[in-house]
């Protein structure tokens, strides 16, 4: 009898620990917006996918692994799109995917901050992205804004008309998995 109670209690404890460490998975909807802007150029990436695991109460078990199809860039102008996809800029034939994999997510005063590796144009660099998470029932929205230096990723020629600093605005509505 003692053995049975002990086994049951162990199982319950394991179940509780397991439930605590597995954070909520979220599925991005198709209403996302991955936009970028600078003094001269601006646009969006139309194809985005990935795994999003996030729990406000358990950021240590949360993780992002998201990819953007570099060829899905849209500046609103056909000639600019062609130029952006060329080997001078994103070189989408050689580097078809932009990937961000989180390493750490922490709570901040304004929301959260994820630190991870951004792999873009063959260059992998650590990047911290502040974001806000707004949950409503089974849906939620991740929003974040940050700037990156395009020359850090060897995108475009240094200098020129397009500024070095590119502002990125991300809005990703999600639903519970």
């Amino acid at each position: 009898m003692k053995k049975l109670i002990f086994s049951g209690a162990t199982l319950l404890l394991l179940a509780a620990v397991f439930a605590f460490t597995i954070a909520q998975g979220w599925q991005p909807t198709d209403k996302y917006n991955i936009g970028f802007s600078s003094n001269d150029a601006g646009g969006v990436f139309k194809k985005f996918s990935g795994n999003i695991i996030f729990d406000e109460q358990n950021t240590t078990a949360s993780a992002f692994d998201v990819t953007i199809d570099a060829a899905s860039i849209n500046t609103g102008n056909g000639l600019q799109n062609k130029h952006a996809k060329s080997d001078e800029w994103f070189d989408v034939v050689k580097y078809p995917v932009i990937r961000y994999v989180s390493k750490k997510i922490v709570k901040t005063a304004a929301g959260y901050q994820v630190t991870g590796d951004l792999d873009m144009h063959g260059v992998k660099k650590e990047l911290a992205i502040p974001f806000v998470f707004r949950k409503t029932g089974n849906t939620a929205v991740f929003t974040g804004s940050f700037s990156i230096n395009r020359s850090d990723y060897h995108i475009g020629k240094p200098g020129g008309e397009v500024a070095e600093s590119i502002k990125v605005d991300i809005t990703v509505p999600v639903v519970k998995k």
Partner: protein
Amino acid sequence: MFKRLLLLGVLAGMLAGVASIVYQKVYISSLGADFTKIAAPVGIIASSVLGCLLASLGFWLLNKWLKQKGEIVFNLLFSILSIATILAPFAVKLPLDVESPELFPGLVVPMHLFPAMAWFTLRPLFIRETAN
């Protein structure tokens, strides 16, 4: 002559507008690229009529000022301006939710030539003689 020129402008504009809308329908059905939100039929007809009316006004003014040489100058100017405007669609920045913006110039570039074609086609029906 001015009234006939105005009538020519309106009718040539309507003809160019109808030709543009027919071309747009063929373009959409063959390539699947729909730009009707940007190049709406009403806008196409209105801009075609406006272009042809301006052409009529230009024709009248040039014939007043330059007499016999007015027609030659007008024909050259109208053709050159029509061809020059085909550069504009290549530079236009469409809303970011519009798919395949690279197909947009292929739609609107021919439309820029239709007003001149329509105006020159209908002109002999309205204006037989220019300034003496």
